[in-house]
């Protein structure tokens, strides 16, 4: 086997979740537990196919599996992963054979996950339902202890033997490449596949072959036959083999494997590679997936279809995304004094979807079909195919993404904008000074001011800067270059904020360098002895806003703040953190701002193009939900450094700050999404403000901000024309130029549900769902939001099952190929801290995450919900080790793992990690000598250390926020935190394990189907 590829699969089904048998879902569904429990019993008994494969759980005394199986295949791995499992059990004799089988299946399964292979094969036939059914079958008939075997069999209770034989009725298999390897499945495809990725036949996406989907069935039920061999305690054990269920790692790896040439955007409706895959994009008329990703690349033609499928139609747009160096940034097009050419009716901008007619004298809009005259200066002849001769000379006629230079008509007050300004507002209250924040910020700003954003790297930035410090009152600084010393102007009238000076507040860095440096040197000294603990917040933003107003420019405020603003002033807050409200209907109020003041302030900020970035350094509750209102509404960011300590958090903060200041950003932006007749952008998620239903207003828009847009039908779409969308963002660049960035996207339309299900992107769907849910908790009880999510997901899958999958046993879980990870990812969303907080998760943390996720793109949500877990046994330059699934059972005591969530970075060290490994990484051989407080790895002169640090650096570089490295030693207290990210496991806060959830999902689906 190819290790890389298969490892994950090969890895043992993890331990049966400890919680499996328990009424995990109890809260969700009262009725659930009942059926469940009984079911377990039999299931465990059943054990047949699974039994072979299942490795014993470390934690649960599961008798089931036998270690051996692995031995054969990859003993080493096995060891590593399972560690020396204190497993008890498993009669070898029995298992051995079983093992072999499962293994094969495993291989087979692999094929399953690949979308392509599936089409390809005859697979259906292979499908083994058998084992699949094992775990899943959650009892349909609650009371019956026997549990539902699989669907069909449900009625015929417990006594089903079939499993062992493993034969599923062929029908069920029909479609499938189903993942879950039935024990038997083995055959056909197996062999070829061993080589790994290669094997996938290059199935073309469009291939008619099978419908891609995975099917799972599991049957479970008391299998008499197996019961015997494995003396399982009936009450424990989940039967579902974790290895038998769709593996995110497998999907990711498969996608990587098949992507070896640049992705060209010319073909309509083509789903791009996954966000986890490295690929190059060639813009051939549609926007790069780095700018726009859709949930479905084949939209249903009618509203009915859309409603039936429940698949959300949405796009995640990241208008100013940074492109890798080998891709060309959007060209800037200047259409002259009259501005960009647009459709007369719908005002869509010139784009490749405009059809030139009448010899090029007019063009017909692809969105609204209106015919518009081509202005004389833009006229060009058409060639024999009806294309303009200059088509490839003009980005707006040939590319998916480009920019227009805007004219004065596109500017506020019909006046070309001033260059933007950055204002730094620094809390200098006691806590801020004591934590070291003030001096760190001041020190850093001295150098950072040379890196203000600019478009031409050779020129100085035109961004002006200003400085304010504050506690209960505000101190403005006059840093005019002509002064010998900065001057401080104190404004104590916080109830009615104003800017005390105009000239000298916002300055060009180069003109005032000495004065600014002197100021930044003096600020920490001036407040070194402060006793002031109270702060204000509202007036701070007002001050920045007023300053920008006075200077008549857009800009960004960087607010460095420590505490709940309790000083008497507008926007004063009270501590309302009340744990008792968690889980009640009133919980939602905690996510809403406690004062409407900030909403109206945000509105004012947006009107001025004043974006607010908030850096929080709280030692206690600061009400992020309220403080974050302005940043979130203005396209800003919130950064939170709880219990900030200069020593340990400085690096993270400074890296975030550096990146935040330097990153490309646009100001005073308005985004509008136009679509072809038939659908309409109806809902938007992200950091912005909307004063009407169509215009997304962003006081600031940086390269990391994504906006999720939901579309709804308002008419029919046609398969012929597909669905077009054009996202136009009007913004002021950091050099003060007014521009329009245009992203065009065309997707196919389908009248068959199957087509829809074939061309979806689960990661994007999850992005949408998470944003949808996280906004939902503002107005609904958290539980209701979770239920809604589960329900919608079940409907999606049920619809597929009903309309697209070939008929099969009801007990069989059949998932569309491209959505087979939906359950696992959805589970991660459901058990995120926002929706299901653990006891140690503060309200602030939840509000923080909620806001953070609202503007994440697909790649970020993906890794956030399903962290990347890399085993660090052997590191090769140029490639990363293949990740393992986020489950404790995948961890080997002898190994070291790196886990990344986009926000956190952990280095987990197994208790019996190899000494060599430790030596390479930490420079010590002893596990006990590793300092868990360390946040950076020692620089050691060995390839392993080098490569590891390289990897860590590259991870950090990929993310918009710096990840602090935490070293977690196995069985250390900190491991609890780490475990929280092992999202396939049952979580401490009550979140279901993947396996449990899949079962639950299956049950829901079946309920819908019946």
């Amino acid at each position: 086997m190819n290790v890389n590829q298969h490892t994950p699969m090969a890895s043992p089904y993890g331990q049966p979740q400890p919680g499996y048998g328990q009424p995990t879902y109890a809260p969700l569904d009262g009725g659930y537990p009942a059926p469940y429990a009984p079911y377990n019993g039999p299931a465990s008994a059943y054990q047949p196919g699974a039994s072979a494969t299942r490795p014993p759980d470390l934690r649960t005394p599961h008798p089931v599996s036998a270690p051996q199986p692995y031995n054969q295949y990859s003993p080493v791995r096995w060891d590593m992963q399972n560690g020396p499992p204190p497993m008890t059990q498993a009669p070898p004799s029995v298992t051995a054979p079983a093992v072999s089988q499962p293994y094969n299946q495993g291989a087979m399964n692999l094929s399953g996950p690949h979308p392509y292979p599936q089409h390809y094969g005859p697979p259906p036939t292979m499908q083994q339902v058998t084992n699949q059914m094992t775990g899943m079958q959650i009892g349909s008939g609650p009371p019956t202890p026997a549990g539902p075997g699989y669907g069909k069999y449900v009625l015929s209770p417990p006594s089903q033997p079939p499993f062992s034989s493993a034969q599923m009725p062929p029908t069920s298999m029909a479609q499938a490449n189903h993942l879950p390897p039935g024990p038997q499945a083995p055959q056909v495809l197996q062999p070829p596949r061993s080589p790994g990725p290669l094997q996938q036949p290059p199935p073309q996406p469009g291939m008619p072959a099978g419908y891609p989907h995975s099917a799972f069935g599991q049957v479970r039920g008391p299998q008499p036959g197996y019961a015997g061999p494995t003396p399982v305690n009936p009450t424990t054990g989940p039967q579902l083999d974790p290895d038998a269920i769709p593996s995110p790692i497998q999907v990711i790896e498969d996608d990587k494997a098949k992507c070896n040439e640049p992705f060209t955007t010319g073909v309509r409706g083509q789903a791009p590679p996954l966000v986890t895959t490295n690929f190059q994009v060639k813009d051939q008329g549609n926007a790069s997936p780095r700018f726009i990703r859709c949930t479905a690349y084949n939209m249903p033609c009618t509203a009915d279809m859309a409603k039936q499928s429940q698949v959300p139609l949405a796009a995640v747009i990241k208008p100013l995304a940074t492109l890798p160096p080998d891709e060309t940034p959007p060209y800037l097009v200047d259409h002259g004094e009259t501005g960009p050419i647009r459709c007369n009716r719908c005002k869509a901008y010139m784009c490749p979807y405009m059809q030139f007619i009448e010899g090029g004298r007019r063009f017909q809009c692809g969105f609204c079909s209106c015919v518009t005259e081509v202005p004389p200066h833009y006229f060009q002849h058409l060639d024999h195919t009806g294309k303009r001769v200059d088509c490839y000379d003009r980005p707006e006629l040939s590319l998916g993404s480009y920019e227009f230079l805007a004219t004065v008509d596109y500017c506020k007050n019909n006046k070309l904008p001033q260059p933007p300004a950055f204002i730094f507002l620094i809390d200098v209250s006691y806590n801020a000074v004591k934590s070291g924040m003030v001096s760190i910020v001041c020190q850093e700003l001295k150098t950072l001011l040379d890196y203000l954003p600019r478009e031409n790297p050779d020129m100085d930035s035109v961004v002006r800067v200003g400085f304010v410090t504050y506690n209960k009152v505000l101190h403005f600084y006059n840093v005019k270059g002509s002064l010998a010393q900065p001057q401080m102007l104190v404004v104590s009238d916080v109830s009615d904020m104003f800017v005390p000076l105009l000239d000298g507040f916002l300055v060009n860095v180069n003109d005032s360098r000495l004065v600014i440096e002197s100021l930044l040197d003096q600020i920490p000294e001036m407040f070194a002895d402060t006793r002031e603990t109270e702060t204000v917040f509202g007036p701070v933003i007002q001050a920045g806003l007023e300053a920008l107003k006075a200077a008549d420019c857009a800009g960004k405020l960087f607010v460095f703040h420590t505490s709940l603003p309790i000083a008497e002033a507008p926007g004063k807050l009270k501590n309302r953190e009340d744990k008792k409200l968690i889980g009640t209907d009133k919980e939602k109020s905690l996510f809403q701002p406690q004062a409407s003041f900030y909403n109206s302030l945000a509105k004012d900020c947006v009107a001025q193009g004043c974006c607010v970035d908030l850096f929080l350094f709280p030692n206690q509750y600061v009400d992020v939900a309220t403080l974050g209102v302005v940043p979130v509404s203005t396209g800003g960011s919130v950064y939170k450094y709880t219990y900030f300590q200069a020593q340990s958090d400085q690096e993270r903060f400074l890296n975030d700050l550096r990146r935040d200041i330097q990153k490309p950003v646009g100001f005073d932006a308005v985004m509008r999404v136009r679509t072809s007749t038939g659908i309409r952008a109806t809902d938007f998620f992200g950091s912005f403000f909307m004063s009407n239903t169509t215009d997304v207003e962003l006081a600031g828009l940086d390269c990391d901000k994504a906006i999720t847009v939901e579309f709804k039908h308002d008419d029919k779409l046609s398969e012929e024309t597909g669905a077009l969308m054009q996202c136009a963002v009007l913004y002021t660049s950091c050099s003060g130029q007014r521009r329009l960035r245009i992203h065009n996207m065309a997707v196919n339309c389908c009248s068959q549900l199957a087509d829809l299900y074939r061309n979806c992107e689960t990661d994007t769907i999850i992005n949408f769902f998470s944003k949808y849910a996280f906004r939902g908790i503002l107005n609904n009880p958290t539980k209701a939001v979770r239920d809604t999510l589960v329900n919608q997901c079940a409907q999606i899958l049920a619809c597929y099952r009903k309309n697209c999958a070939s008929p099969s046993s009801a007990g069989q879980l059949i998932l569309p190929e491209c959505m087979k990870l939906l359950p696992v990812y959805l589970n991660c969303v459901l058990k995120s801290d926002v929706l299901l907080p653990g006891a140690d998760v503060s309200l602030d943390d939840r509000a923080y995450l909620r806001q953070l996720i609202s503007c994440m793109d697909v790649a970020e949500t993906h890794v956030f919900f399903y962290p990347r877990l890399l085993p660090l046994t052997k590191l090769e330059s140029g490639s990363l080790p293949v990740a393992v699934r986020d489950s404790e059972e995948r961890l080997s005591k002898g190994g070291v793992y790196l886990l990344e969530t986009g926000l956190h970075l952990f280095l987990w060290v197994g208790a019996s990690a190899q000494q060599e490994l430790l030596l390479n990484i930490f420079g010590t051989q002893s596990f006990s000598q590793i300092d868990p407080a360390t946040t950076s790895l020692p620089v050691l002169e060995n390839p392993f250390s080098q490569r590891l640090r390289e990897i860590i650096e590259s991870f950090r570089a990929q993310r918009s926020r710096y990840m602090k490295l935490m070293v977690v030693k196995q069985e250390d207290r900190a491991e609890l935190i780490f475990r929280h990210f092992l999202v396939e496991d049952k979580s401490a806060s009550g979140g279901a394990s993947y396996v449990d959830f899949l079962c639950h999902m299956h049950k829901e689906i079946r309920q819908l189907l019946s």
Partner: protein
Amino acid sequence: MATYQEFIQQNEDRDGVRFSWNLWPSSRLEATRLVVPVSCLFTPLKERPDLPPVQYEPVLCSRANCKAVLNPLCQVDFRAKIWACNFCFQRNPFPPSYAGISEVNQPAELMPQFSTIEYIVQRGPPAPLIFLYVVDTCLEEEDLQALKESLQMSLSLLPPNALVGLITFGRMVQVHELSCEGIAKSYVFRGTKELSSKQIQEMLGLTKPAAPGQQGRPMAPQDAAPSCRFLQPVHRVDMNLTDLLGELQRDPWPVPQGKRPLRSTGVALSVAVGLLEGTFPNTGARVMLFIGGPPTQGPGMVVGDELKTPIRSWHDIQKDNARHLKKATKYYEALANRSAVNGHSIDIYACALDQTGLLEMKCLSNLTGGHIVMGDSFNTSLFKQTFQRVFSKDFNGDFRMAFGGVLEVKTSRELKVCGAIGPCVSLNSKGSCVSENEMGTGGTNQWKVCSLNPSTTLGIYFEVVNQHNAPVPQGGRGAIQFVTQYQHSNTQRRIRVTTIARNWADAQSQIQHIESSFDQEAAAVLMARLGVFRAESEEGPDVLRWLDRQLIRLFMFHLRRSPFLQVFNNSPDESSYYRHHFVRQDLTQSLIMIQPILYSYSFYGPPEPVLLDSSSILPDRILLMDTFFQLVIYHGETIAQWRKAGYQEMAEYENFKQLLQAPLDDAQEILQTRFPMPRYIDTEHGGSQARFLLSKVNPSQTHNNLYAWGQETGAPILTDDVSLQVFMDHLKKLAVSSST
């Protein structure tokens, strides 16, 4: 016995007091018939180089509602060591320290020549002087520069331990912190928002540390330093403040075309008052406000910032067309009263070509004893020298200024106090000697005079309450005691006590005596003050009519024409300015203001005073006119021609040169001493500036009285005003008709 003239002079020199009547009619009825009330002009701090202060506390009458100070008029029983109060007749034992008293060993306060005596008392720690500069930055560059220099210069004139503070304002108000090193700090207030004193103190961060300084007890400067970063001893912040002033920029906010700069004078003042209120209540302090234009925003705004709307004129006011007038006046009055309560005075130095809102702001100075100085620009010697003169020193090297004065007037039973007119506010002390009949600021026998200088003079009005049927015994005397407590500029607390007595006279039998005791000059000034006081509160014409009814010979003619009552040709600001000075100057200066002095210089004799009449304007004379506010040197036609021809340069015409020089020298003498510096005008026949003279002289010859035309006897005046002659004729007619 000396003549009344001498008696009056002597009294003035010794006690700084001049009464309208030096014999008092002995009953209310008779006193009322005399028209001019018993009243006096009193100069509390009249300079008395010959009067060494005594270093002990005054001895007070023990009666609680009397508390009169032991004085030469008291009867003393040296054996019993008892003295009788001459106001309430209470018999008081001398304090133990007076044990050694005897006929030959009397304390100073019993000696007749010490009818005025000054005590130095030790009460609390010495309070530093405080100077708070409130500076308008909406000035032209040149003006601001000149002002900065003047301010920097003034630092060197202050005693080293005096506290200074700086507030600047334009669109915003900045209170500068003076103690800090490195970064210059200031607290900024929005210029449009009215703030309470408490808010201001909170915003300045004064509320907490200021606690020990309250209770009216000033802090020692050492203690004050940390608690009030805004007021620091000169010696400590001298350099710092000089630099700060040097770096002072014009208000940076752009002023659009057609607009006035936004000037937040009102808020600046309220911040200044609030700051002092919170930090140094009841301590002598001067707020010195420098303005280059009217307040244009916020509370106390006098005119909007639209240039097309001119600032109010008398015409607007009469037409009730001055929108901001009432509100602004009320605002500044409230501020002035707060300031006065705490003993802080406010000076206004207004230098601008247009009006600056003195009409509305005058009460700031009038009620607190502050100065008002009006000029065209800070870059003029008028301002520079006047400002310098604020800091002039006396023969002891102390400032000629005193702070936090409280003037109390005690009277014998037959008299009651009706009120006072001068730079004071009432302390609402309703003693037994307070009349119900108010004249000026009445209803009290104590007034606060926040700032005093040696020439500050109050008019004090009395009422004879003795009933006709209860005659005062023959030879009885009425007594008045003035007790002035104040903070000397060397920070000592002092009490000056002046006790005077006048004989009662029965009007029926001694009307001649009473008549001859009439002090025409004092009466004129006192009546004029009453007139001005009324003019400030009533409509102009009514006051003139009232005055006309109160006949006082010649002065009335000029007073009628003076800017104190007549607003024609003067802006509201100018009127306020003139009136301000009129009600505080001593008698001599007041007379000059009412009837300007005209000297003539010619080859025909030594310089002589001549009639203030158009007939005095002759071609071969040089005239020097002193109106108090202006000094005009007017060269007659011939003299002007000679001068133009340059005769003065020729050796043989040395005498002409001397003639030219003589008025200059005299003018110089006046310029040296007068505060504020008068406007100095050197003009000649036909010169445009000659109008200053022509407008003052009695128009005995005008373009429409024929006999004047073409004669060589003087210069015709182009006016419709009546001449003195006509006025007198008319007056006589009236007098006759009214008596019938």
